[in-house]
């Protein structure tokens, strides 16, 4: 049995994957806003990533402080292999479930 991902967790992990080296809170938030139309609060993103980290799906490290952040450090996230597997599994599941329903799904 593997990890089951919630929808928001899935979106966050996809953003982390997409951003590659540059995945930190504000950047993930921008991705979510632009690609998924979700305006998530930093707190929600942080809590989600913290939970994913505790489950061993992502790891994090601190970057350098930047003036744009009021002198605070960025916290960068990367997927671990377990995270990649979990993401792949839930993505495949979604694709399979949706097969043959494309017409119906795009209509609405």
């Amino acid at each position, binding site marked *: 049995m593997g990890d089951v991902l919630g929808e928001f967790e899935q979106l966050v992990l996809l953003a982390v994957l997409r951003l590659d080296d540059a995945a930190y809170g*504000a950047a993930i*938030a921008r991705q979510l806003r632009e690609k998924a139309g979700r305006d998530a*609060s*930093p707190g*929600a*993103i*942080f*809590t989600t990533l*913290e939970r994913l980290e505790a489950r061993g799906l992502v790891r994090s490290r601190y970057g350098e402080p930047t003036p744009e952040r009021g002198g605070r450090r960025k916290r960068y996230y990367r997927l671990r292999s377990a995270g990649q597997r979990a993401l792949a599994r839930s993505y495949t599941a979604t694709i399979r479930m949706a097969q043959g329903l494309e017409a119906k799904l795009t209509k609405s």
Partner: protein
Amino acid sequence: MTRIQPPRFAEWLLRLTLDVAAYEAVAGDLEEDLQHNAARGTLRARLRYWRLAVHSIAVCVLLRPRARSPRQGDSIVSTLLNDLWYALRLLRRQPGFATVLVLTLSLGIGGTTAMFALVEAVVFRPLPYTDEDRIVMVWETDATEAEKKVGTPANFQDWRTNTHTIDHLSGIAQLDATLTGHGDPQRLDGRRVSASLFAALGVRTLLGRVFAADDERVSADTVIVAHHLWRQALGANPDIVGTRIVLNDVPRTVVGVMPPEFRLPRGPDDFWVPLVFTDWERQARGSHWMMAIGRLKPGVTLAQAQADMDVIAVRLARDFPRFNAREGLLVEPIRDEMLGGLRRPVLVLMGAVMLVLAIACINTANLLLARASARHQEVAIRAALGARRLHLIRQLLTESLVFAMTGAVAGAGLAWFATIALRMMMPESLAPLRDIAINVRVLTFAAVMASLTGVLFGLAPALHLARQRTATAIDADRASTSARVTRTGRTLVTVELALAMMLLVGAALFIQSLRRLTNVDAGFRAGSVLTFTIELPRSRYPDPARWSGFLDELMTRLEKEPSVHAAGAISWLPLTTAGGSNALFVEGLPLPGPGEETFVFYRLITPRYFTAMGIPLVAGRFFDHRDSGDARKVVIVNRTMAGRYWPGESPLGKRVSFARAPSPDDWMTVVGVVGDTKQGSLADAVDIEMFAPGAQEMNWFPPSQVVVRTAGDPLAITAAARRHVRALDPLMAIDKVQSLEAVVATSTAAARFRTVLVGSFGTIAMVLAAVGVYGLLSLSVALRRREIGVRTSLGAAPRDILRLFLAEGLLLAVIGVGIGLTIALFTARTLDTLLFDTPTTDPRTYAAIAALLLAIASCACYVPARRAARLDPVEAMRT
């Protein structure tokens, strides 16, 4: 790109509520986002910052499922929120444990809060006057008796003229009246008051005006009505002022309506009229019926006012020795009169309920301690992983505070129900407490109690846990810790049993006292008797000829009803008031000196009163038609009086008088002796008493309380009684319709109220103590499983194991009960004044209660002890 400053307050909130890591990430992201959106306008960007910040705090505080050790730089609030969350999660994980804890605490806190609502009403609630601490009452005192009594009108006028220390000294006198013209005639309680009373109290009307000096005329016909009378009988007419209402057949102009909270000492009243002395009253120094209220002059102390009145008392004693030789004067703060008598009983109840709270706390401490020993390893590991001791203690304290606060919320709900119940069963004598309520002050009290108890019962287990050495804890060596846990637990349970013992002794004393009180022979047969009061206004019934005509006719009609055996009437029913009293002079006995007279209770009755009440005739005869207004004056005396003045001889034909130098008309001849009846209350000894026929004038208290002995349910003839009264006088009001049994019950209501309360506290305490014993022994069994296994495998029979644990529990019970018994023995006498004919040191009471508590404790021990005896030895040693 211009930099926008982030909203400072929002940033501060983030720092306060989030831990360091979350704060850095969240605040950084927020600021970045802010600068990003700067182009869209400063205000919009900042609003967006606020929205996201609030959402972030909510998410981080509520949804982060972790108990973390705090790190350097975390704010206190964020740490506490974290602890709180952890505690709530534990509570959800152990629902049974949490339920027992919260129930126990809610009983303690709820009970204390309900009682505090009483204390608040008695001790803290301000009276509805301005500057109440400047308002005083003036009483007369008797040199031989400590009791205060109301003043006389003639003396009152001298006080008012001569005082240098009291302003607006005002008189208050009783006045009952019948209101007609607004539906059925209605009997009202009113008072005659001096116009200056309103200034003395500093009160104003809701509508209209208070009395002015001009209202104090003989021809004055003004009246001020109470709020409830205005709302109910007068239809809340906003234009009431200036209209007329008819009281005792006299039309009076309403000049004002008082606000709803207004109440005079010994109230409540329905209306107030100006107090104007008649010529006769102006001279009266012997009849006591006036209360006096005034306001201390600016700068005057209570002691100075007392000294001032003392001087006046000496002068009055010198000028009018016949009336004032033994009289002193007492100046008393108005609060003492209105609530002073309640202070002691209420504080006793508060003390009792505090004991319950203490027991609840102990139980909670013990339960937490038991759980602490189970969590022992978790804590040790956390300590080993670097959790600081302070943080561990804080975490545990937060947990107990969560329990306490949950208990407080449940307790406040309980208290709310309790105050409703209290209001419903509250006797008339506690009327000022009727408006007890759960208000802000009471809720604050509950919150403070909860915090205090939370800290108190949380501290012991917390310190205990945090103190333990890491090494011994992780190690499986549980023997020493379990010994320590159960030692603390044992002490607590012993204390708890002692407290329960004390409460139960108190409850037993109250119950015994109540039983003796209700078993007292009142001297009459209360079953199947209807009583009601009629009002005989002086305007239509000015003399005995008039009222005895009416009463004779009414009694004749009532006795014609098929179910009625006898009907009579009396000035005051027994057990409602002690009765009128007057100085007694007995023919043939030496005259007592002035001020040394013996006073005798007297009541006016109709001929069949004794028959209706079931009071036995001992000698002579009852009154009959011969004892009319123009016949020779006669009296019937009670057995006590016959025995006191004519021991060993017949009192029949002897003569007594109320006059020191009686004219032939003043003599009253004894024609009968009846059995004693209680006068003021069941608790007081019967005093000497005389009864006179209502047809022969003696005073202004005509027989207006009617008693009707019937064949079955007395209330069944209520309608017939009303019909007969109405037929004889359509303007007459009927009031206080109730069975004689209800009259008797009312007289013991205060005692019953106390007994029910202390009894329930005692029961709760006993249950809680049993829970305590049970919990401790269960813990002990759990901790000693291995020992049990060893003993069993070495040949101990289940019976031996059972005996082992029973002995452990019973030893505690015996010690606790012994301590409680000893303390109760020394403290029970504080209850003395609240008890009737019940010795506070009766060994049988103590023995019975001790036996009861020991039996309960044995049952509580038996269940876990049996569980121990049934343990499978192999299973037991494995754990």
